[in-house]
């Protein structure tokens, strides 16, 4: 399987929702997709293309938008595939991939904690590294580490 085959296959399945394929060394490529079809795309990739392993979910803050990227691994083809979707800064929401790959649980919590991307349908979307009640998402570019900021820590209720 090469990138062309895969993107063509996906493009026929999700017309207009696959926005492009960039080459990326050491992987099959980087597929940009429309976040609206996230769940269906993930399910299709897992069931039809044997990307059984979700390695990484991360997010980047590009000031004007936020990018969510997924790194998938196919055991049959021994290849990585990178998916990427752009989300608007004012509503960074995408469907959660936990129902399809349970391994996304911690990754998505981390992305929510640090970059502030909301994953709809995540079973337990809480902060993971930062204390509960922390007001910032530290990996946003607007967060400056050298500036003092107030830290409000809410005590756990349980």
């Amino acid at each position, binding site marked *: 399987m090469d990138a062309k085959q895969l993107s063509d296959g996906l493009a026929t399945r999700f017309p207009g929702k696959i926005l492009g394929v960039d080459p*990326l060394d050491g992987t099959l490529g*980087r597929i940009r997709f429309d976040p609206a079809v996230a769940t269906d795309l993930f399910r299709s990739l897992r069931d039809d293309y044997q990307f*059984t392993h*979700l*390695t990484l979910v991360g997010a980047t803050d590009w000031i004007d938008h936020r990018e969510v990227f997924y790194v998938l691994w196919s055991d049959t083809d021994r290849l990585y595939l990178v998916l990427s979707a752009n989300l608007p800064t004012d509503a960074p929401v995408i469907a959660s991939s936990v129902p399809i790959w349970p391994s*996304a649980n911690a990754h998505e919590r981390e992305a929510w904690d640090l970059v502030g991307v909301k994953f709809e349908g995540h079973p337990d979307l809480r902060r993971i590294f930062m204390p509960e009640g922390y007001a910032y998402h*530290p990996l946003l570019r607007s*967060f400056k*580490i050298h500036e003092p900021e107030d830290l409000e820590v809410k005590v756990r209720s349980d």
Partner: protein
Amino acid sequence: MTHGLWNLRVRIEGEIIKDVEPEMGYLHRGIEKISEDRHYNEIITLMDRTCYVAGLAWEHLFIVAAEQALHVTPPERAEYIRVLSAELQRIASHLMWYSAFVQDLGLMTPFLYGMRDRDLILDLFQSYTGGRLTYEYMRVGGVRSDLPLGFTQRCRQVVDWLMDRFVEYDQLCLSSTIFHERCDGLGVLLEPEAVAYGVTGPMLRSAGSHRDLRKDRPYSVYDKLQFQVATASTADVTGRYLVRMEEMRQSVRIVRQCLDWLDDHPGPVMAEHLPRWLGAPYAPMGNESYLLKRNYPTGVGLSMMEEPHGEAGAYVVNDGGEHPYRVKFRSPVLINIWAAKRYLPGYRVADIPPIMGSVDVCVGECDR
């Protein structure tokens, strides 16, 4: 729970575990955030502190991603030195795991044996990197310095000694009925579940999977080296023990091959034609408008590696500036711990130390 700063909230009924909930973040140092303000080479100092028992492995991981993002190719000798370092580091990390794991079972002796033998590897590291725990050795485009004279001979001496010690370790553990009583059939995580939960590394291979990125997707010079992937079939704590022990033996094999190659092929260890801010002295870069004029290529680097704890990843976005725009790491330990919801319930409270010990937790890399 031991092994660093983290909590495992356990709900029990009598002695039986019903549900677990890991709590992380006590060691979060914001390495990904600090990286945004640092030169590529300066991030190396953070990498050593990411996983403090496998510093060189993480340096290797980041450097490969950064080189891919910056379009730099290191010389082959540097690659061999990196692989040598990573494999020695794997042995050191597994020795550390062995020490801590058997200590959790209540046996103190192997702890001291393991630490004693790990120290020999640290001695080796010190002789060529100058540090015993934080090495700061690899650089974008190569490594800091070449191996010192007589290093290969000393290294062979150490790995020969280690091969003898591995036999002793097995005698202390595998030959003991009590060890089997404590470890057999505990923490079973079968392959389909392990894959679904993203578990990698020795935990996955103990379930019979042959997945090892050094074989499946060879990076650096692993495609030129002969070794086998260690697997076990029991998917339990004993299986993980067996996998790690065998991995150490295979690492010794790789180390020997690297040493042979390094003996025969002297050469440069640093790439030429590096961008300005990657060369040795770092200096003020001047006005940003000049920086933009320079038009260095942008890029994305993704490296995935078989780190001692599992499959680690680094994702580096280079937007043409002197600092990376975004650095993202995949910590195998975080995911392996997260799957505890799957492999802990049903066992007893007294089984938590061996099971979680067999995961090989390194909180530094988990929290970053």
